[in-house]
């Protein structure tokens, strides 16, 4: 019997069931093509007086630049879409590299689920994320992914070709070096995920004369045993070809990972990795000639106390006769140890990290012991007050020379939330004392007093910070001095425009020489444009509420932020540590395999989550900072896959912090999630503290500027 049309009703029974509910912003207008972006024109004036040799700014006078960022998208149908972005700048500043107009990043992604073989095409910038052992970096070029529709398991075939270039001027230059290759990936329920990858790298003589090929096979499977969910993963890789040192490359890598967790909060990780001395793929993110054993075990001692133990061993140059070994034993404790008491310290949040590390080699050219203790305390007094204190101690023993050096630092401060004449703001004074005792028992000491204040009212924002440092040294070779640093920033937002005025003053006053004053004044005009215009009203998000917290985007933007969400955070090892302005802070570990402090800062508005952020203080040392950055990026790449935006400008070198301040160093990686845009990177420090930040918000500010960090003192 044929079915009849609806115009002649034949329906006797109708059953309606809901398959899915999606919720998005209120907006009645439909748009064919949408775009958004912003343009920022910045004028800066630099001046140095006094002893100019010690001034902060090597170039004086007027400097200017203009940054433009545009995002666009078009959804041709439910199954066919296009999105992209362009970042361009006009530079007339000595602090930002070469003069002229440049397109630094541009990308278009076209996705078609209507064709017989669904495909995704990336043109321009894309992040080639095959595996850590083959290729994991941002490239400019082409990538196509095919997902053939089979009745059994899903398949994915990726083919790509591209260059690693900072901007499109470099991309089109004569020194050609290319990555190209592909991978086949399938995921089956019974056998797990299986991938075969091959990447070829070719460069001309001027860039190393490499012709190398790295291939790998990888497998990963989840399974349940006992009350644990386990995961086993392995990858075998081989590098062949030629480079500047050999015509017969023969490098191999073996990687094995076994991990698991249960619902009671216990987890473990066993990671073994071995890379030959010749295993140095140009696009990989691994250390050559290294053997790694990484054992970690985490557990909840109580509902609000978490302990993590780690033992790591790295053997470098293991193919040589002089193997150097680093052995680390560490423990990390976070939580509310006095929560069961009724006293004042019931809400005292404690973060303690201790480790001992031994570095030595077989030739006994060095043998060092490092012992580190980091203690962070925070105590919310009430909704307006939060007090904080920190103590750090690092001891270095040179066992061969029998010498010891020590560095310790003690700091304390408060955050006070104030309201005055319709201004809402935070005032955060901090006192810090740092002491260094070197191997000759010479002592240097820094005492610093600083404060940060930010306030806002009806489209106006003000930021004021000041820090005074007094350096005392017992070593006659050291120069005692005082420094004072002041920053004032005023911003007015009016419709699509913002006007930002900044003033920076740095004074260095050595005891025996002339003092130096460095000034910087800046004026910026920001114009934002959107089509269609963003909604004026807020919205609730897809799931109405937070139900778990394993990734930052589990904190649904717009969801209610109440005691139940805080309980979920507590179950995920994050416990409340007080308020700083409109941010509620929580101490814990979102990335338990990494020992760095990871503070969660949740911004709420009218009881709903506005933004969610992870703040990770990082060392000023370029090698340590780079290692920390890469470890977190690796974790994020494994969780979120290839990012939609990757900016990698400048190197981690001795001047990296200065370059970060001057916008010549930039690290920004973004993922488009179903719950906003996730940005990871290193913003320009607003509080003097260098931090890696992970921020989730509905829209991110322009990636052209480094000025996107949060003004929170940890």
């Amino acid at each position, binding site marked *: 019997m044929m079915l009849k049309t609806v115009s002649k009703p034949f329906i006797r029974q109708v059953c*309606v069931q809901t398959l899915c509910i999606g*919720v*998005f912003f209120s907006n009645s207008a439909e748009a*064919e093509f949408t775009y958004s972006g912003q343009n920022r024109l910045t004028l800066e004036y630099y001046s140095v007086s006094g002893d100019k040799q010690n001034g902060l700014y090597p170039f004086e006078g007027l400097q200017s630049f203009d940054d433009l960022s545009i995002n666009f998208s078009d*959804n041709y149908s439910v199954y066919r879409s296009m999105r992209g972005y362009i970042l361009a700048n006009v530079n007339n500043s000595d602090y930002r590299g070469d003069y002229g107009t440049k397109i630094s990043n541009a990308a278009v992604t076209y996705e078609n689920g*209507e064709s017989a073989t669904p495909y995704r095409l990336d043109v321009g910038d894309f992040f080639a994320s095959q595996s*850590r052992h083959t290729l994991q970096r941002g490239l400019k070029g082409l990538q196509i992914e095919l997902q053939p529709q089979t009745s059994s398991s899903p398949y994915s075939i990726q083919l790509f070709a591209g260059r690693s270039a900072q901007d499109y001027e470099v991309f089109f230059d004569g020194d050609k070096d290319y990555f190209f290759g592909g991978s086949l990936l399938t995921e089956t329920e019974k056998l797990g995920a299986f991938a075969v990858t091959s990447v070829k790298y070719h460069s001309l003589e001027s860039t190393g004369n490499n012709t190398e090929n790295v291939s790998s096979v990888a497998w990963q499977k989840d399974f349940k045993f006992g009350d644990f969910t386990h995961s086993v*993963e392995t990858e075998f890789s081989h590098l062949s070809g030629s480079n500047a040192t050999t015509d017969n490359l023969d490098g191999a890598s073996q990687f094995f990972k076994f991990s698991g967790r249960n619902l009671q909060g216990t987890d473990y990780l066993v990671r073994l990795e071995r890379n030959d001395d010749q295993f140095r793929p140009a696009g990989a993110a691994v250390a050559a000639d290294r053997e790694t054993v990484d054992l970690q075990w985490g557990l909840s001692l109580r509902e609000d106390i978490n302990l993590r133990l780690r033992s790591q061993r790295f053997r470098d140059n293991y193919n040589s006769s002089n193997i150097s070994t680093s052995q680390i034993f560490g423990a990390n404790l976070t939580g509310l140890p006095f929560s069961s008491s009724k006293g004042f310290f019931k809400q005292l949040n404690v973060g303690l990290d201790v480790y001992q590390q031994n570095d030595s080699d077989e030739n006994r050219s060095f043998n060092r012991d490092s012992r580190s203790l980091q203690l962070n305390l925070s105590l919310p007094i009430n909704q307006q007050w939060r007090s904080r204190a920190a103590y750090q101690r690092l001891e270095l023993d040179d066992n061969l020379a029998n010498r010891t050096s020590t560095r310790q630092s003690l700091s304390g401060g408060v955050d006070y939330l104030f309201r005055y004449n319709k201004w809402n703001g935070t005032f955060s004074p901090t006192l810090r004392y740092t002491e260094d005792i070197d191997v000759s028992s010479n002592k240097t000491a820094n005492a610093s007093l600083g404060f940060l204040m930010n306030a806002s009212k009806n489209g106006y924002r003000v930021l004021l910070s000041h820090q005074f440092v007094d350096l005392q040294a017992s070593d006659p070779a050291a120069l005692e001095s005082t420094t004072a640093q002041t920053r004032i920033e005023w911003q007015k937002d009016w419709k699509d425009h913002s006007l930002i005025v900044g003033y920076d003053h740095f004074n260095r006053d050595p005891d025996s020489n002339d003092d130096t004053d460095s000034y910087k004044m800046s004026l910026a005009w920001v114009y934002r444009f959107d089509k269609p215009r963003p909604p004026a009203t807020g919205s*609730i998000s897809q799931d109405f509420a937070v139900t778990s917290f394993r990734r930052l985007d589990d904190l649904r933007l717009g969801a209610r932020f109440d005691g139940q969400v805080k309980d979920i955070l507590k179950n995920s090892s994050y416990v409340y540590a007080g308020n700083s302005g409109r941010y509620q802070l929580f101490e814990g570990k979102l990335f338990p395999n990494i020992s760095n402090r990871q503070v969660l800062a949740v911004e709420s508005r009218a009881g709903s989550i506005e933004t969610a952020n992870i703040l990770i203080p990082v060392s000023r040392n370029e090698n340590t900072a780079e290692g920390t950055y890469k470890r977190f990026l690796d974790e994020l790449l494994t969780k979120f896959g290839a990012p939609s935006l990757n900016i990698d400008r400048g190197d981690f070198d001795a001047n990296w912090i200065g370059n970060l301040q001057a916008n010549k160093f930039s690290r920004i990686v973004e993922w488009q999630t179903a719950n906003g845009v996730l940005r990871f990177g290193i913003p320009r420090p607003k509080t003097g503290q260098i931090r890696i930040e992970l921020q989730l918000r509905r829209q991110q500010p322009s990636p052209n500027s480094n000025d996107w960090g949060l003004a929170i003192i940890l």
Partner: protein
Amino acid sequence: MKILRSLATSLFLVILLSSPLHARDFRNIIKIPVAPTGFVSDSVGTGRTNFKQIDQRLIEQSVRKIVASWNNNTLSEYLADNFQDKSLLINTIRRSVPRDANLRVLSVQGVSTLEQKELKQQKDKNKQLQSIVIATVELQIEFSDPFNGFVRLPHTSQFYLQVTESE
């Protein structure tokens, strides 16, 4: 266009939810939403098919019933067996939504059919027509917040409905 974008968002959400429990060192498959057989995209970009039309009044009545069930805690009766994290949604609503919160339908703006197929019942040899229908609904949640007073949260939702018509 907003409808399409939200559908893509929802599909992306489903993909995220179905990702492996443990992160791995090599890449994952980020699935491309695949068009069902019979789907034809037109030049305007809205996507159309030669599906049999579903009565819009029927959809509107159903949406109102579903929203009413949200208010009286019987939503689970209307959620399909394969609804993603069905029990999680019910528990979340029960746990997190304020008790005095009321969900109100402001309007049902658009209804379109995404997928349609015939089902044949072996027992009584009757035929069924099963359609996947997307309805765009203007909703408003209203509740009293202890800090902010009476709160109205207007938003636009998309309901993915499985409509089974039997002879």
